[in-house]
């Protein structure tokens, strides 16, 4: 717990005040966010990501645990004493003030001099490319423009950390993609720590330096996008990010290494189980694009029959049925490969690196 982190969350628990019997909104959550990091809290609605963000901002109290900003404990500080600013999901722009006045607000509250304020406002307007709309009222702006004003307003006071609560969720797809690029650019230019909340896993993978995946008040896994995608440690994380197939079955000792025998059919798939998991209750998981279709004459592979073929441009998805009637999805690139047809039998090879073992 030192100044090496921008934000430290230590064992934070938040219970619902009006019904303490319910499972807590935040259940012993701990995370350390580094300086200048683009850190994302990812999870479905109700997982507690917004609650955690609001607790860091100061809009929610915590039942127990500590929150540190740059090494200083901020639990008891009201929002206006924390050097943190928030971009709200609904933007929350002051309707009775112009764009420039909105941006100037935080600066005036900080007591920045009469000379310095307009200068900084101008800088911010330039940063988000809104100079020409400085005197408009928020009601006269489009959603994307409002979003940029909200961002500029939150950045102007040069906070230590910027919190963003699903800022892009109200935008249509094309605009959202543009704004994602903008946000990344601004974060890197301004060199500020971003804590970003979203339920969109693709957005999280694209923008983040690190991601914390949350579910029902718990942090399931923290890691880089690559870690989260390729090495999910929990079933929830594996399912929430990208597509995944699960094969129930058992671990067995093989010739020189452990193998996994799926319940679907008696083949032995070599794979290395990660440490610390209960081997009596494992499942094998693999991403659809990591498997390979091989020559059916070769033994020791999963056999499946193609039921549905879906063309998705760069690849084709095959929905297949295994011998025990369970289903898996395979993704094969369309470049150079053969197209398969419904009813065909295929052999599926799972290289060891593609095999993810996790508790069921």
């Amino acid at each position, binding site marked *: 717990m030192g100044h090496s982190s921008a934000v430290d969350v230590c064992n934070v628990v938040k219970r619902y005040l009006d019904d303490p019997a319910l499972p807590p909104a935040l259940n012993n959550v701990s995370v350390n966010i580094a300086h200048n990091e683009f850190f994302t809290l990812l999870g479905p609605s109700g997982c507690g990501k917004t609650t955690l963000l609001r607790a860091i*901002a*100061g*809009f929610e109290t915590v039942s127990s645990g500590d929150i540190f900003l740059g090494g200083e404990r901020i639990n008891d500080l*009201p*929002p*206006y*004493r924390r050097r*943190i*600013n*928030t971009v*709200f999901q*609904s933007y*929350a*722009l*002051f*309707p*009775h003030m112009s764009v420039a006045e909105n941006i100037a*607000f*935080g600066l005036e*509250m*900080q007591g920045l001099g009469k000379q310095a304020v307009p200068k900084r406002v101008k800088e911010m307007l330039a940063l988000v490319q809104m100079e020409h709309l400085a005197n408009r009222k928020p009601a006269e702006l489009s959603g994307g423009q409002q979003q940029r004003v909200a961002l500029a*307003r*939150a950045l102007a*006071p040069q906070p230590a950390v910027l919190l963003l609560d699903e800022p892009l969720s109200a935008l249509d797809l094309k605009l959202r993609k543009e704004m994602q690029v903008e946000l990344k650019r601004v974060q890197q230019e301004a060199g500020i720590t971003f804590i970003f909340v979203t339920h969109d896993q693709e957005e999280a993978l694209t923008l983040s330096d690190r991601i914390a995946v949350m579910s029902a008040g718990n942090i399931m896994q923290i890691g880089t996008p690559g870690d989260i995608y390729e090495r999910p440690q929990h079933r929830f994380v594996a399912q929430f990010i990208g597509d995944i197939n699960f094969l129930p079955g058992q671990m067995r000792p093989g010739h020189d290494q452990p193998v996994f025998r799926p319940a679907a059919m008696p083949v032995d798939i070599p794979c290395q189980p990660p440490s610390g998991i209960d081997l009596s209750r494992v499942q094998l998981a693999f991403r659809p694009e990591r498997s390979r279709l091989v020559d059916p004459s070769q033994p020791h592979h999963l056999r499946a029959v193609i039921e549905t073929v879906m063309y998705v441009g760069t690849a084709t998805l095959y929905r297949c049925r295994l011998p025990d009637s369970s289903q898996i999805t395979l993704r094969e690139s369309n470049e150079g490969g053969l197209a398969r047809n419904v009813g065909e039998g295929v052999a599926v090879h799972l290289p060891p690196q593609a095999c993810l073992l996790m508790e069921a």
Partner: protein
Amino acid sequence: MIAQHLKKLPLTRETSLLVLAYLYLPIFVLIGYSFNANRSATVWTEFSFAWYERIINNPSIQVAALNSLVVASIATVLSTSIALLAALATSRPFYGRRMVEGSINLPLLLPEIVIAVATLLLFMSLGIKLGLVTVTIAHVGFCIPFAYLPIRARLNDMDKRLLEAAGDLYANPYQVFRRVTLPLLWPAVLSGAVLAFVVSLDDFIMTFFVAGPGSTTLPVYIFSAIRAGVTPEINAISTVMLVVSIVLVVLSYWLGQRGRSKAN
């Protein structure tokens, strides 16, 4: 959306028009007769401003009108300020909030005659002389709920996130109030103030009991005049009061609408 024709039940339109006529007939009759040159209320002679000239030059009416305005102005300022503070207190839920709000609105529910005599007893037992001061004090009491309701409604509609955003941007609670809450609330405050003003201007029962000699307001004057006998002057002054009330109420309504569209 349900087809509108489903909602049209027979006779409702006719009844409604009848009711509207019933509501507005007396008002129009009154206004009409105030312009009747003839003294009699039954015979219409010709259009005339005579009675208006009479009332404008009537010193008793002048004094009563002045009293009404002074009392209403002071009572409005006091009651609206108190109502504003109370509305700010009740804007967030807390244990017992409903009871507190019920108490604030209590004057609306209690029969005015009872409160009037009780207030009279209060002043008498405290030895306070009856006059404009007692009238003003009494008015503040029942004006508060009328100022309170529009302010409270507007606070309810206000986006709470705006207040959070202001706090997030380093504004302490006082600054949040001054820079965000109050500007957005102001049209509702004005709307409430106008309503309080109207209610004070129009009050009769309470004023009747706690006014002393020489502190007559217009409604009390009108009542005494009616007791003495129906005259066209009464029609004229009544019409003036009606028009003033209606104009003020429409103003209050417009102010309330303006505030809403601005902040949403």
